[in-house]
């Protein structure tokens, strides 16, 4: 009798358990579906503008005609043709051909131009590339050095310096641009890429926070063990900390490389003019592309929308690919560590 009862109870409880599991599973599935839906919607919102720009770069319409369409009315490669050859297309084949019918000299020099008067002139893309490469090198050195010093070395001025840097970072730097411009003028660096490289990488050390956070997570016991083995602090930095910090090195390189591509205000102020083929002045990509949309010159305003999109794609695609490829390092750079603290 008792056995039967027990078996029944067991069976009942098993059934209940299964029911419970089943209901749990249903809940989980429902939640997951909801989460998937949310994620899909959000991804559409996040990716749509970028796809829009990419599609717009293939537009076959002139000027801003296609701006209000998500998918261009006609497709062509005229914008890329324009960007690569510095020939602005003024007419395309009826019905959306792939190439131009009529063209004129472009107002913007994107890659380079071989003007008969000026000879070979670097366009904004090459200028920015140069600036970005140098900036990446210098500011990575500065940032890592500062971060290492504040994270690992203990010296009297450490706390005060950190506080001063914190406070310095709060001052809007724009007013200082005036004086920087004049300093560069005094030493004859205006109108060269070095002025921008100096500005971009000079203050890079003050953005040490993320790298320091990374160094902090590397266990100090490693350092101490190295010290016991007779390593100097330089050797520790060079032989132990740096190899352990590849993610943050890559991350810093990447961010500082990407900086100049996206920086507008300083470059436009220091280097000045945005149109860059006639007068041969230097300009960066950001300034030039901004000018394509917001040109102060009425005669070219609105004409270069397609070129803007094409230029944006040409910059955006490599930089984005680089960024996505390094995404893991980015995550590691912010949070990772050799030994968990």
């Amino acid at each position, binding site marked *: 009798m008792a056995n039967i009862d027990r078996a029944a109870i067991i069976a009942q409880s098993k059934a209940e358990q299964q029911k419970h599991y089943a209901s749990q599973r249903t809940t989980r599935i429902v939640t997951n579906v909801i989460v*998937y839906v949310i*994620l899909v919607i959000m*991804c559409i*919102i*996040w*990716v749509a*503008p970028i796809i*829009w*720009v990419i599609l717009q770069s293939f537009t076959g319409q002139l000027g801003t005609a296609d*701006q209000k*369409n*998500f998918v261009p009315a006609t497709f062509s490669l005229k914008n890329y043709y324009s960007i690569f050859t510095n020939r602005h297309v003024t007419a395309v084949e009826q019905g959306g051909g792939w190439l131009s019918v009529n063209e004129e000299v472009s107002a913007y020099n994107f890659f380079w131009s071989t003007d008969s008067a000026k000879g070979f002139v670097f366009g904004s893309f090459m200028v920015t590339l140069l600036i970005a490469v140098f900036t990446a090198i210098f500011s990575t050195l500065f940032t890592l*050095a*500062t971060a290492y010093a504040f994270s690992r*070395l203990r010296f009297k001025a*450490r706390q005060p310096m950190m506080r001063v840097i914190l*406070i*310095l*970072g*709060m*001052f*809007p*730097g724009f*007013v*200082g641009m*005036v*004086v*920087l411009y*004049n*300093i560069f003028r005094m030493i004859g660096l205006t109108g060269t890429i070095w002025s921008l490289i100096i500005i971009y990488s000079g203050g*890079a*050390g*003050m953005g040490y926070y*993320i790298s320091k*956070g990374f160094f*902090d997570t590397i266990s100090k*016991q490693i350092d101490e063990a190295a010290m*016991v*083995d*007779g390593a*100097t*602090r*330089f050797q520790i*930095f060079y032989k132990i900390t740096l190899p352990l910090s590849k993610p943050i090195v890559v991350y810093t390189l990447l961010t500082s490389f990407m900086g100049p591509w*996206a920086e*507008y205000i300083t470059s436009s*102020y220091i280097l*000045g003019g945005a149109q860059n083929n006639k007068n041969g002045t230097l300009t960066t990509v950001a300034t030039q*592309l*901004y000018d394509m*949309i917001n040109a102060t010159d009425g005669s070219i305003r609105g004409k270069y929308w397609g070129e803007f999109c094409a230029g*944006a794609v040409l910059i955006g695609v490599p*930089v*984005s690919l680089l*960024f996505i490829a390094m*995404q893991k390092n980015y*995550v590691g750079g912010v*949070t*990772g560590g050799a030994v*968990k603290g």
Partner: protein
Amino acid sequence: MSNNNKNQEESVESLTQPEGGAIDFGSINALANSGWTKEPWWKKLLVWLAETLIRILLFVFGIIFDVCRAIVNIIVTIVHFFTRGCPAIGRFFRDKGRIWREGDKWVKLSFFVNGIGFIPTKQYFNAVLYMLAELAFIVYMAVVGVKGIIDFILLGNVGHGYPDANPQAGGMAQNMSIQFMIIGIVTFMIIGLYVFCYFKAVRGAYDMYLIEHMNEYKQSFKDAEYVLENPDHFEEDLSKMSCKKIYELMRTKYGYGIPSARQISYVEWKRVADREPNGVQRFFKGIADWFYRGYDKVRNGIAASPWSTVFAKWLFWEQKQPEITSGRNYVLAVQKGKEARFHHTYDKFNDYLPWVREQKVVLNVLADPRKLLDCAYCRDEVSQRNGIEALPDGAKLKYRSVATRVVGLFECELHVANRVGKWVVTAVQNEAVTSRKGAPVKAEQYLANIRDGLRDKYNQFVSVNHDQRLARCEKFANLYLEENRPSVVDTLPLGKKGFIEHFMSEEKLDESQAKQLYEDFAYGNTLGAEEAEAFYTLRNQRAAAVLETEKTYPLHPAPLSAKKQLMQFTDEKFHITVLALPTLGAVLTCIIPLLFSIFLAFTNFDGDHAYNNFDWANLGFAKLFSTGTGGLMKSFLSLFVWTMVWAFFATFLNYIFGIVVSLLINKKGIKFKGLWRTMFVISIAVPQFITLLAMKILLSDTGAINAWLASGSTATMTGTGTLEDPYVISGNGGFLEWLSGWCDSSGRSIVTATVRALQGKYLRTDSGEVIQLTQTINVYTKDAYIGFLSNLNTFSTNNSTFAAMAIIPKITIILVNCWVGIPYTILQTSGILMNIPEDLYESARIDGANAWTQFWKITMPYVLFVTGPSLLTTFIGNINNFNVIYFLTGGGPTTGGVLNSASKAEGTDLLITWLYKITVTSEKHQYYLASSIGCVIFLVCAFFSLIMYSRMGSVKNEEEFQ
């Protein structure tokens, strides 16, 4: 003539800036005419005189200064004899005087070199560096500096310099205010740096002096040890010497500058020595007394500490000497076992070093003897588990990790250091403990001393029943401690008689034996307690002195050679190497511009006084904080509020939604995590200005979004067009109409009605009014769109406050910023979220915490702890967020009200874009105003970050987190 004019124009052009340098030629000419040549002669003369005077002064500055200091030092040498009673001041003067008195010709010479006061042996290259630096400074000041400061102070007063400057001759302008300002700032910084270096050099030189002489002190210290251990031998030596020789010995072997020794004349000295055989000892005793009494005062002086200890010890030994028989052996044994070993190791360090170098191990530990001692201590800890509770947890771990390595390497030799380390550290700890917790710990220490140190002694005295007696002895010690009496004999529970009887009956001793035992016992007990106390005191003092010495100077200090000093930059001074370039960069690109900006707020630097001739004036703040005509207080407050609202939403919406999204992505059971993350990352991978400009076009009034919202709209026209039956255009505006109707009762939409409304007919408008058409319209567009960025239309028409506050553009901007910022938060936090240990959640679940509680109690604290500082910088960064506003709206739309054309501000302007407009876009280029706004922004940011910074856990507990 025309040619001349042309030249002038060219030169003026070269002077003006490409941006904002709006100088009209009239003002330049006026400047030229009112220039130096027009100044009265006496003014020129005055300026010339002043400059020349300062130049001359500067040339002789260093020499005058040095001579003055040398004189002061000489006076000080005399004065210090009188100031000995006042230790703090006296010590300073005494040391200065001692440097002069004891130094050789180099030292004396060095008093004349700026900032040195002393050149240690092998340190002449330093002196040369100092001298070069001084020379460079003087030359700089004479050539540029003085002029720079004068220019900086006069700033706008035309013509105080460059008398030959003539724009027409193509030279510099008369008065390049901006250059004066830069040079002035740089000069001030250089002066500051120089003064800093100067004081550091003086300080460093003094330290070097002491370090160099520490070795001599150490030698004398060793000698004293020798004397202590071989007193008889020493006395023999002394008796054979002449008094003068003794004095010399005192002076050379035991250091110089013992005032007491010098004050006792030779005669007196000899008389004392002749009259009493123990005279030498008494003499020592006198000195020792002096030192011992003055110990507390003197112990802070680094030079005094080894000495006071030696003499304190001497005193101790001498006082006890007549009485101590077996007790003395004990003391010596203790000293030998502990202190002597300490000094043995102490002195053997140098012997160990080569061996260690050969083995390529433990250099840094040896370079830092404290560490070695710690290591040794730890090793003991590890092996014995003795007193480990006294150490804090962190220290225990750290020491153990080092110690375990040391153990393997030093097995043969380090047992000495091991003991020593333990001894020093416990002594130091004990001192710390007693000073804090007082009696109980101290009493324990007494007990421990007695237990450890007197065990052997009691073994000697009492041959039988060892444990029992030891226990009793401890009991006596306890009694002693409770009563705190010098002797415990009287407090023996049995009394003398009882004691003897007890031993006679219990131990079967005869009476004399028992009596002797009692005597011994009582004597030993008293002695033990006293000795323990004396020893304890000494030991603490000694430990304190050692600690102090070590804190200030390394145990084996020596002036480093040039090469070693250079090598320090890869090790002890590595931070200087590492930080040099970043600091230089920061000074050039941040600090100088920053100072400049601050100064600029007090000038009238604008389009009318550009670059060449602005002057000091308090315009910026006055204008910013005035509510009167031309005052910008109201605009400022309005923009300030919006800036704060913006920064708040931009920071925290991004943060919270970012965490939520990354939680969704990280949720269990969600697949393609990498894909989702990549989707979000794409949007930040593209340079920001591209996406923002694309957004601007997308969201514009005629942009794709508005077109999409209005797509599918239709319109029909009813009515015949007469006055009685006017045309009525009605439409179905699709989603946009629904949205508009939801927000705006008039139901506007983009409706394109392809109808033909003839001229002269009547049309009923939206407001119900009937109007006669002045022309035929073929396509009637009811003009409606959502002014995402332009603030026009739909929402605003019927709601003027809504429009005046530019609410829609503001919301759009914040949402777009979410679009920009959320992926960053996802990137930052998803790694952190994955790192949160799963067992935290498990235990929370077991405790019955639901998802909400888990999020707030586990996830958020964890994420906040890691990303807290970045949150702070994000907030500050958003206050200064230029890009989003500038690229999306450029500050617009214009709303009127306080943000009018006079203030140059528009609806969505942040303070920083306002600043940009004032500086660059506006015609007046009011740099001074921009600077004062910059200062205010700075103060606001500083306020916020100081509050947040002081409360941030991960900042406070930085070391713990590491």
